[in-house]
């Protein structure tokens, strides 16, 4: 029989228990999420990772008997952990979804994204939360942009109603009516596009869309790394090297020629 107090065996046990805890936690999370979707049930955080935490405590005690992780967790770190954990469960609770304003949701997602990333297991949640926060920003930017355009159309309608009446249309001047509409709407849209409000809203829209695209590229990069595939940044590096070599070759050719 192997000695249970042997540090190496403690470590193996920790790995084994940790793995079990991970799978159990995944199972709990999936079950909880499914329940919450169907019954409005909010999963309780206390049942999430006891097995993994006990294993971790045992491992730490075997290597550092003088340090009590439970005490450490009960102080500042626990507060930090608790906030992120509560935020995450709030995230999975549909009853809170409609009540969240984008700003509140953004704060919650931000707190998850910046949670302590001491274990690889936390990372996917962090990435998802960050991407979600950026999606919310993009949606806000889209709404702001749409508002400006909506106001521009309203101004166009107002101007058009002054320039062309219903009676004009009834008299059969359809082509003139349409031409007047096109001209008035075009002018209003051009004036709007030249305004600072439009410029800023459009810039924000492009900027938030760009960040989402960047996040997508990062996800693809991580996927490629996981499967030992060449990543985009590696190919970009090679492209840059080839471009510089072609440049040198051109200069040399000219010097020789």
């Amino acid at each position, binding site marked *: 029989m192997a000695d249970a107090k042997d540090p190496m065996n403690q470590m193996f046990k920790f790995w084994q228990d940790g793995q079990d805890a991970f799978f159990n936690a995944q199972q709990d999370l999936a079950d909880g999420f499914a329940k919450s979707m169907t019954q409005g049930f909010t999963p309780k955080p206390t049942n999430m990772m006891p097995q993994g935490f006990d294993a971790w405590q045992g491992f730490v005690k075997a290597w550092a008997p003088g340090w009590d992780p439970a005490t450490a967790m009960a102080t500042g770190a626990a507060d930090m952990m608790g906030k992120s954990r509560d935020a995450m469960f709030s995230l999975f609770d549909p009853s809170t979804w409609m009540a969240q304003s984008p700003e509140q949701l953004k704060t919650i997602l931000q707190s998850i994204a910046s949670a302590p990333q001491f274990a690889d297991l936390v990372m996917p949640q962090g990435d998802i939360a960050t991407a979600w926060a950026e999606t919310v920003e993009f949606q806000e930017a889209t709404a702001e942009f749409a508002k400006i355009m909506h106001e521009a159309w309203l101004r166009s309608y107002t101007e058009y109603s002054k320039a062309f009446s219903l009676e004009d249309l009834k008299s059969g001047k359809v082509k003139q009516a349409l031409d007047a509409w*096109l001209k008035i709407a075009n002018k209003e849209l*051009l004036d709007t596009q030249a305004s600072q409000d439009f410029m800023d809203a459009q*810039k924000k829209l492009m900027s938030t869309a760009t960040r989402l695209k960047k996040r997508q590229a990062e996800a693809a990069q991580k996927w490629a790394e996981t499967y030992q595939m060449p990543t985009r940044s590696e190919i*970009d590096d090679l492209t840059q090297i*080839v*471009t510089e070599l072609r440049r040198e070759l*051109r200069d040399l050719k000219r010097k020789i020629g």
Partner: protein
Amino acid sequence: MASTNLIKAEFAEAYHIAWQQLMDEGVKAVKSNDTLSKIKHGDVQIAETPADVVFRVDKVTLSRYRPLTKKKADVPPVIICYGLFGRQTMIDLQEDRSLVRNLLNNGIDVYVVDWGNPTRADQFLTLDDYINGYLRDCVDYLIDQNDGKPISMFGICEGGTFAACLVALEPELFSGLSLAITPIDFVGDPDNFWAGEGFLNKWAQNMTEAEVNEIIDTHGNMPGALTGAIFSSLTPMASMTKYNLGLARLEGDEAATLNFLRMEKWIADRPDHPGAAAKEWFNQLYRENRLTAGTFELGDRTVNLGHISCPVLNIYAEQDHIVPVSCTKALGKYVRPKLYREIGFSGGHVGVFVSRKAQGVVASGLSDWLKETQNTKTK
């Protein structure tokens, strides 16, 4: 709120009546649909004037158009340089709207640069690579073919800026410089812009360098779809109604419909702009206006437009919503008056090449100017 609702209701009623009457007179739209349904993809061809690739470097090719007439003008060969935001096929849209055919019919030897189809593999190419690298390579080839004698350069839009820079850096290689719808001063005269003029300038100047770079770095290049969307937004209602009202108003005219489709084919073929070059274009030129400030550098040399010493023809469009007139006419400040000439065309940015009247004003004007200023027999 009540007045807004009233406006909405009145507009809705007006809109309803308008469309009802349109439907009553819907023969035009039906005719257009009928014509469209008979046109096959293969019927919509552009850039059909025969040409042969005579030089190639990386993705860039130089093609020589086959002569259309036996007569030969006593002018140097002309190399046409288009920009990277669109395709050079615009200069040869269709047989009766082709700058290239007009020049060839005047006996002029015409070459055109094709930048190819930039991809992420080209994202690190700079303006220096394009101007002092590829364009210079094409020019060197052509000068070699011309027994070492200078050639004439014709630059269009961004390609005009490339051409002006190369002529300023290597004046001894060129007998003449003609430009069309070319930005030189990237600020222009904003106080006197008409509605819709100079939007692109303002748009770029509203961005920070970091914001420009973030967009380009994320995509690798400046996506053609993005620049296409920006160009479309410069004529908002025309862009929104061209596939419905615009097409209906063609009343099924086959020639007009084919012309419309050829333009659409050209517009849809918008390549990505290589990233590093796009950053320089927007940051150093649009945002910092370095060319007119005399601080624009290509490689280790500064471009001084005052070094242009050959005859210059500057063609601009009076209703150009992409390159304001004041931005293009600025070149006149840098060239000696006796060498400088302008043709102002009453039309828009693309109309300079594809409209019917441009064939007489622009194409003939360019041919006449070449014969007058660069006659190889009298020099």
